[in-house]
């Protein structure tokens, strides 16, 4: 398969596939809308500099191409490569940073699972910190994927727990329990999305295509674990703190008005590394691994510990277990 640099459409010697027809129609839309939308804030917002310099012209053109591109899931490999090249170039033009965006797919024979040791967690929140840095979370809105709830000894009771504690930990007579996206096997957030901007990958990670999401926030209403975050305003990450090792479906730049969530550090875990939160935890309360590998630590825990999950009655089968020593 080759790609004609002047168009978005990959040329295929074997003729047009159904997918390419879709792209063609999308291009037709772009031509139709092109004149009308050229002056709108859409393009202007994506290219803040005036169109005088060649760079700004390029940025505008790239932003326009970005606007009319399709859903990541339905792109061909060539289209994926193109959109990634565009995004990398845009990061360079707009912020002067050199980012690498991966498109590593799910590895065969892998379904990720997570376990959380309640007796080991001491409420240090190193995982929260690591997650913010690793995933380029919005510093202005102080977005956090992971929450650590402080509870009184005796009973797991979220209603009377505190996730905003600001004192020395571990506090006397308290224990800690963390939540994040539990990567449900039958995720209600995916079912409700009207445009298919969020879906579950074969390795069990529920991802969001930030460029396809329309920001209706229906998935936020659907998630029983309050795991999704919305970009109420333009996310801000200081260039010096930016993690340039990115994944299209993971920690790359997000924009205003779209949803995001924990993605099990997709850019690390698909290459065999551990999620940042697991690595950062000083007490070893966090266990991550491949549920399909009978020799993995997580399988050992599931087989030998007393485990439970939150809201089992909802039957959405989260792949996130709690256990105690």
């Amino acid at each position, binding site marked *: 398969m080759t790609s004609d640099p002047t168009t978005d459409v990959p040329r295929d010697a074997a003729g047009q596939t159904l997918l390419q027809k879709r792209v063609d129609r999308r291009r037709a839309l772009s031509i139709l809308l092109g004149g009308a939308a050229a002056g709108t804030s859409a393009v202007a917002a994506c290219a803040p500099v005036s169109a005088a310099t060649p760079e700004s012209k390029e940025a505008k053109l790239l932003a326009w191409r970005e606007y009319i591109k399709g859903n990541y899931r339905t792109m061909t490999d060539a289209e994926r490569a193109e959109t990634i090249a565009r995004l990398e170039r845009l990061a360079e033009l707009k912020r002067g940073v050199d980012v690498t965006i991966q498109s590593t797919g799910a590895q065969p024979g892998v379904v990720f699972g997570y376990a959380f040791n309640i007796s080991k967690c001491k409420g240090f929140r190193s995982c929260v910190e690591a997650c913010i840095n690793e995933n380029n979370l919005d510093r202005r809105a102080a977005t956090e994927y992971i929450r650590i709830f402080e509870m009184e000894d005796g009973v797991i009771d979220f209603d009377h727990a505190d996730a905003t504690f600001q004192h020395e930990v571990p506090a006397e007579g308290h224990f800690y329990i963390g939540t994040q996206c539990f990567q449900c096997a039958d995720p209600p957030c995916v*079912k409700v*999305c009207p*445009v*298919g901007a969020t879906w579950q990958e074969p390795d069990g990670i529920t991802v969001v295509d930030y460029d*396809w999401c*329309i920001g209706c926030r229906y998935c936020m209403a659907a998630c029983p674990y309050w795991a999704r975050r919305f970009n109420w305003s333009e996310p801000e990450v200081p260039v010096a703190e930016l993690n340039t090792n990115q994944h299209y479906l993971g920690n790359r730049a997000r924009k*205003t*008005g*779209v949803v995001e969530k924990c993605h099990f550090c997709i850019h690390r875990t698909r290459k065999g590394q551990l999620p940042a939160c697991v690595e950062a935890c000083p007490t070893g309360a966090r266990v991550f691994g491949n549920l399909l590998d009978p020799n993995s630590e997580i399988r050992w825990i599931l087989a030998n510990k007393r485990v439970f999950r939150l809201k089992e009655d909802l039957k959405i089968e989260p792949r996130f277990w709690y256990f105690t020593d």
Partner: protein
Amino acid sequence: MHLKPFALSALHSATSGGRRYHVWMGGLTLIMLVGAYAYSLQLRYGLGVTGMNDHVSWGLYISNFTFLVGLAAAAMMLVLPAYILKDVDFGRAVLMAEAVAVAALVMCLAFVVVDIGNPLGGWHLMPGIGFLNWPRSLLAWDVLVLNGYLALNLVIPFYILYSRFSGRQPDKRKYIPWMYIAVMWAVSIHLVTAFLLAGLPARPFWNTALLGPRFLASAFTAGPAFVILLLWFIRRETEYEISEGAFSKLALITTVAAQINLVMLGSELFYKFYSPTHHGINARYLFFGLDGHNALVPWIWTAIALSTVATIALMIHPVRNNPRWLIPACVALFVGIWIEKGIGLVVPGFIPSPLGEIVEYTPSLVELGVTAGVWALGMFVLTVLVRVALPIELGEVRSPYVEDAGAARIVRPRSTRTQRRDIRPVRTR
């Protein structure tokens, strides 16, 4: 073809009127401009300028949306007795009810547009070039049914008015089948919107089988109540004759629906409070407040008081048949249900959050501005539609090409001020 004269006369009808008419339309335009400005701020800075947050991710916009879907549905369902049961009393009320449906739908769609974070991505919803997650996502269903319903409500009245304008009797065989479809469709828009909320396992507050029926009951209360207000106004201000029968029947529908609505509310409260399980925690927040958080408590009790008092009043025949009481009762029902099926339905679904955290919600000024703008837009649309329909229905406006000599002229709609007949709204007998 009479299309050009039709358009011209419609434009003429909509733009001419007395001073009060112009003040009204000017005022609405002003509010719309304020709304447009507020919306431009939201476009520039993101939804962060609203009072919503990650906890309460839907607020005033979606609240108004759920309420207005009901208004749209109920207005159309009044068509059933008029056209299908051939009720003469309703015949004249029907076009007005359809105008209400169109205006409500325009507001619904506008509220959805202002609520989404990435409106320029709207084309992602279009089947073919985008991707509509149908049939899995109920929001996709809602997109389809709302737009289909809008189309039906535009085409049917247009056909009827255009036929009259062209000096023809509208052909029943051509529009009655569509009426049937539209009436069933009206039920569907409301049920789909209710299911959109009821289908979420994460939100016990909405997770009740009664939600759909409750939506219908409250729609059948607020909808006819609004139509009564509109007809009363039209009858007072124009020559358009609306019979006593239409009012008393509409009032009866409103009363029965209001009773059913209260019964359903009662069973819901019983289920939520008699054996207080965790399922009732959001209702507890709504009605009594939780741990000192009680922003919605005064609202919901106001709504319940308004609905209850108005319903009881309407159950007394002399009260119901006297406009002195009927009109305020309708206003009370409308406002009561606006609170109950708006803010009182959407916001407590998010408080406390599924993990038990309580974060309250107060709409921001920008949000209030946009909301006012959308309501003004709806009232503007409604006024224009009524203004165009009335002279045609009255036979004052006909296409200049129509042979019928008496009607072969475009009559300027009479000024509402000078020519107003001095009749009292609904005479009690």
